[in-house]
């Protein structure tokens, strides 16, 4: 079974802090994704990566950056956290080209005070 893990289940940070969310997958998938999920807005794609050191903006990249130095790890960075970034963050990975068969991590519920 594909396993996607995220570094924290719950995280509380203060406004202005730099925040790192880590995601690791163990199935050698090429593609990795970061989403945020908010009530009434569904899942929105922040960034994705289709190869090491490659990244593409999703629908809502503002205020975020990402890093993919190794194939199995995809990091989401909030350079200066703000209260409107309080959300559930979900990481996913998939094999090959296209959006086929995305597998998700358990999510990180981030609260910015």
């Amino acid at each position, binding site marked *: 079974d594909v396993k996607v893990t995220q570094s924290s289940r719950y995280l509380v940070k203060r406004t202005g802090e730099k925040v790192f969310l880590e995601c690791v997958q163990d199935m050698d998938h090429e*593609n990795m994704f970061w989403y945020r999920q908010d009530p009434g807005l569904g899942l929105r794609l922040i960034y*994705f990566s289709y190869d090491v050191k490659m990244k593409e903006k999703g629908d809502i990249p503002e205020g975020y950056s990402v890093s993919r130095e190794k194939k199995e790890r995809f990091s989401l960075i909030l350079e200066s956290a703000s209260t409107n970034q309080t959300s559930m963050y979900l990481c996913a990975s998939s094999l090959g080209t296209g*959006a086929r068969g995305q597998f998700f991590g358990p999510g990180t519920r981030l609260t910015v005070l």
Partner: protein
Amino acid sequence: GIQVEQSPPDLILQEGANSTLRCNFSDSVNNLQWFHQNPWGQLINLFYIPSGTKQNGRLSATTVATERYSLLYISSSQTTDSGVYFCAVPGDSNYQLIWGAGTKLIIKP
């Protein structure tokens, strides 16, 4: 871009009942996925079903691509089936998914 609509938005059933969830999409697609998000937030990939019918235990899914809809059937519902069910189709970029708003299912004991 493509639009994805799910119905009903909410569904409350007694344990043991059967249910049908629907996903309509506005343009032709080459794949469609169904996901279940449990009450703790974990999203599980249920089916990858571009066309035809697939079954996995009490769950089955049918996609009629020519008519632009997919159905998810849950038979003999259990309380563990509660959560939100999403369908998703590829967007303009081959790597992106367009998500429906979900159907929130509550199974009462």
